[in-house]
């Protein structure tokens, strides 16, 4: 049973690397395409761990430190896995003027983690975004890819609690 599921995992992993290889070939293994490849890799694997970064470095014939340097320079790339759910709060100027910072503080207190981190139970990642471009609806939150406008502290807290509850139930 255990062996079987491991095998299935292996198969999945191979497939994922195949996808990555395809993208690398499309860019002719060019080091100039590093950012494109990192985008593809994160899309496939969810985040970029060292093993994956080494794989990319080898394929693109780049020094590992440069790959690591690029991956950590850009905010979009994640080196750690994300929580089951994502709560993206827009912290653009319009949202700030309409009180996004209060929502931010409240959520950090509720989740006992800062923005950019994941709750200790792995259920929710708090992420701040630089303007999602829905300034007319400020303050804006994007919860699991769905946009919610005119967010309030109470609504934000309630939604996060719901997310964490459902995860708890699922685990039970």
């Amino acid at each position, binding site marked *: 049973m255990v062996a079987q599921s491991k095998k299935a995992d292996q198969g999945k992993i191979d497939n994922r690397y195949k996808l990555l290889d395809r993208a690398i070939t499309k860019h002719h293994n060019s080091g100039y395409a590093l950012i494109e490849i990192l985008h593809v890799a994160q899309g496939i694997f969810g985040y970029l761990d060292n093993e994956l970064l*080494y794989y990319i*470095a080898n394929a693109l*014939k780049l*020094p590992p*430190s*440069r*790959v690591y*340097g690029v991956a*950590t*320079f850009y905010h979009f790339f994640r080196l750690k896995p994300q929580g089951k759910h994502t709560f993206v709060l827009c912290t653009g100027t319009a949202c700030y003027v309409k009180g996004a910072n209060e929502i931010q503080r409240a959520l950090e207190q509720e989740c006992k983690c800062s923005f950019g981190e994941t709750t200790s139970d792995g259920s929710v990642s708090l992420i701040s975004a630089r303007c999602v471009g829905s300034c007319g609806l400020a303050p804006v939150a994007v919860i699991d890819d769905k946009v919610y406008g005119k967010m309030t502290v109470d609504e934000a807290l309630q939604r996060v609690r719901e997310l964490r509850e459902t995860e708890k139930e699922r685990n039970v």
Partner: protein
Amino acid sequence: MGVVTFTMDDVQYSANEGDTILKVARDNGVHIPTLCFLEGLSPVGACRLCLVEIEGSPKLFPACTTKPAEGMIVRTQTERLKKYRKMIVELLASEGNHQCAVCVVNGHCELQDLAYEVGLDHVRFPYLYPAKTLDASHKEFVIDRNRCVLCTRCVRVCHEVEGAHVWDIANRGINCEIIADMNTPWGESDLCTSCGKCVRVCPVGALLEKGATVGELKKERGFVKVIVTARSKHEWITVEDHEEE
């Protein structure tokens, strides 16, 4: 090659086309402070200590990358420049954990020299006391990031001269750090040839030889192109591909 004539601090100089203001200044004994610059490495214009004034422009220009033009009037020691240089050293001093009293390069440190040169008697900005790491995994050398000033000389010498590219910069802004390979221990790096060039060029006590104690480490920073050992090994390094970080 053409020659341009320009004025620097009220004295006329002629420069070969392509020379930078800094080169002309050094060749003629005009002192302009520098930190990230090191002859033999690509200039990056990052430390801003060598900024000079050019008449007719409100902007300041780094002497290490700016070339004199015909008739240009350059000033290297105005009150404004002195004030800014002092503030830059002040910012640097506040950024790291610099405890001269217990540093291996105490007395032979470019940051110390700069502090004396600009007359830094105290730092007005609160010290940041960052939690930086020290990596002593290499058999001969140590990197102590507490003392790093992020001049990137090590990154450049490792890439441009040694051709190994062990070092690079991770993160950004105030969180920038010099890292080896995948932010893995230096001692584990397959790329490192242990040539020691990075230690030699480091202006402070961030890169050091093992066994050196307080004030003991004198670095030979005058640039010598030590025999390249790694360049031939790694096909990704090309001469054109300058670091520039």
